[in-house]
């Protein structure tokens, strides 16, 4: 029996990837949930908004690289991030002015909003593919590993290695910074409180003199920042491919609803719940049990709940189970 090795094994294959993927999902899910809470519709164009933001960041990264500017050990993309955020905000506001505002003033039903967001999804999808192409792009530069598995083994003398990529640390740090600022803003500042008030009860908020135009503007700005940051982090950690970003919309939706739609904190936890169940349920625990079980009880099968092919399906299944048993989400979102 070897508990230390088993813990390292789980950290390496479940906890570290889970935290990284969870952070990326959480950032995305907070964006979707804010749109739902304030603007009151499920935005199907969100995955493509993420792709758009990331695309601008990549283009800017290439530009910086061609000028010979780099960020030392960190990826150049972090330097390019502000430009990406600004352009994504511009695009979001453009779509809001030209498309969503009309339906908001008309007080259309949620389905109309969904259909319109499908139209925007098509347009963004096309723009990203026309500008940067549909292929896989790896734009990670700088230092790749903070700790390599082999180095860890040599350092500690254990059987199991622990590899930590620098993108994983960057993701975690960025998420902590972004979320702390966001939650401070939502809970402590006057503007943030008025935003929550508007999301909670529109009429009452209007009566208290809250300017709805300002709230909508602010929401799009925050959402665009979150989309670009989440997209860039995902792209740095894995790679950028427009189709993957579109597909990521589905686990993000799952995280949003599982956490209770319209509830930012719930969306944050939802992201981690989805990420850890996707990774935890598809991991084969055979080696883990080898370490902690007595020798004569070693398992013969892989001890895997479901095969890795069904990774995405797990998040969908969780969502459907939550929808049936707790339609308001685990953390009590609201039904608008």
């Amino acid at each position: 029996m070897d508990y230390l090795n088993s813990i390292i094994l789980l950290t390496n294959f479940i906890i570290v990837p889970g935290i990284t993927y969870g952070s990326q999902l959480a950032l995305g899910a907070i964006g979707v949930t804010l749109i739902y809470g304030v603007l009151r519709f499920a935005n199907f164009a969100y995955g493509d908004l993420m792709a758009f933001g990331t695309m601008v960041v990549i283009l800017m990264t290439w530009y910086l690289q061609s000028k010979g500017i780099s960020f030392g050990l960190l990826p150049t993309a972090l330097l390019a991030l502000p430009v990406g955020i600004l352009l994504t905000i511009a695009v979001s506001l453009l779509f809001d002015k030209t498309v969503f505002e009309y339906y908001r003033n008309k007080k259309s039903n949620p389905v109309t909003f969904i259909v319109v967001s499908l139209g925007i999804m098509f347009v963004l999808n096309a723009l990203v593919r026309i500008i940067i192409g549909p292929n896989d792009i790896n734009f990670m530069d700088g230092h790749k590993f903070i700790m390599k598995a082999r180095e860890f083994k040599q350092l500690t003398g254990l059987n199991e290695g622990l590899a930590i990529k620098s993108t994983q640390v960057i993701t975690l740090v960025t998420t902590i910074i972004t979320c702390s600022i966001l939650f401070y803003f939502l809970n402590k500042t006057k503007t943030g409180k008025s935003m929550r008030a508007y999301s909670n009860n529109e009429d009452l908020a209007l009566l208290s003199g809250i300017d709805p135009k300002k709230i909508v503007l602010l929401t799009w700005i925050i959402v665009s920042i979150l989309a670009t940051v989440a997209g860039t982090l995902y792209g740095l950690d894995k790679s950028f491919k427009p189709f993957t970003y579109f597909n990521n919309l589905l686990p993000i939706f799952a995280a949003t609803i599982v956490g209770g739609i319209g509830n930012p904190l719930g969306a944050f936890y939802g992201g981690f719940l989805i990420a850890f169940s996707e990774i935890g349920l598809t991991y084969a625990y055979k080696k883990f049990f080898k370490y902690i079980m007595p020798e004569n009880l070693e398992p013969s099968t892989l001890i895997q709940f479901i095969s890795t092919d069904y990774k995405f399906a797990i998040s969908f299944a969780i969502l459907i189970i939550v929808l049936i048993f707790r339609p308001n989400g685990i953390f009590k979102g609201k039904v608008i």
Partner: protein
Amino acid sequence: MIKNIDFRICFSVMTLLTILVGLFQSWGIALSMLNLCLISAVMAMGVNIQWGFAGLINFGVMGFLAIGGLATVLVSVPPVNEAWSAGGVGILISGLFLATVVTSIFIINKKLSKNKYKNYFVFLIIILSIPLLKLIAGPSISKIESINAATSGFLGGANLPIIFSWFVGAILSALVAFVVGKVCLGLRSDYLAISTLLVSGIIITIVKHEEWLSRGVKNVIGLKRPVPYEVNLQKSEWFINLVQFFNSSKLSNILEPEVKISLLNQLVISSSGVFVKLCFSLIFLVIVFIILYFSEKALNSPWGRMMRAIRDNEEAARAMGKNVVKQHLFIFMLGSAIIGFAGAMLVTYDGLFTPSSYQPLRYTFLIWVMVLLGGTGNNYGAVLGGFVVWFIWIQSAPFAMVVINLFTGHLDETSYIKGHLQNSVPYFRYLIMGLGLLLVMRYRPEGLLPEKVIKN
């Protein structure tokens, strides 16, 4: 803005456009476009029944299309006897097990409807059944997949004519829709949209990865056809005579017999492709007319009126004693059956089943654009939407090419921007679709052919 467009004018315009494509591009292109237009029309009618008649938002179109496609494999492919003898029993037992689990969940739901802990029971059953299912089916699946992995590696089908598979696809889709509907239909519109989208994702994952069933990402090629094969046509006497008859003026101008024969051969080869597509077109046309006829009948029947009443005011309809839940489930199954039928038609026409090609953008949202653009709640509108959208989808690439060449004409041939834009021509169709949808939603939200409101 024109208030009412007559559907006859619309369809005449579409026919004219197809003929123009035939004259200026080629008859092969025109007919294959027409065939896909017809299949799209069937899909759009399926969605229209759910969304236009009953107001149910189903973003799981892709999943039901894939089930229809799977049906073609299960029905028409000859069975792999070795695989059946190796693992058939195991698969049957696990199928039985799955059926027991599903029925027991339904029974628990019914019998213990008052019990507080009912949900936890159901949850426990689902969680426990997955590893058990793996344990039961696992050995037989690996046995089946190891038999002739390169060419078969799956159970195969029933070796029946492929036309049957269209109906089997419809029935399978309806069965899946029953389960999905039981689970999801109680949800509000936007939750229903998201959850059906995710369910279709699950269905695609299953079809893609259960190789013993569908060969998964290894694809099934060379499916049967309800129409003759080109190779056989080229050998048959009557077809050559037919080609000779149609091209008699062209052939009679040539005097040398050798040139004449080689030209005739060329003509036979090119027209055999057209003839096959023409046969498909006829079959599809008949199907579109049958479904259209019955949809129109249904829409104008007391049942259709009830469905519209439920759609427009659910509370009022319930107060009048209509069973809204039951009707919703029924119409969800009906629409999904038609979508499954179309899915089987599509795979039959392609002649191959490729699970990895199912993407929501192409197989769910594009169909929705068809319905919304054509006219919600109007069957002719759905058919028209299928035609118009597929026409634009196919013709937008050449169109974009022309536009790009127009704007970048002054640029050098080696210019980076020009080359890049020319490479990305296929993606302009998404742009056109998106802009089209946004414009229609803004300026003509009821679609090209609006729903007919009958006033008494």
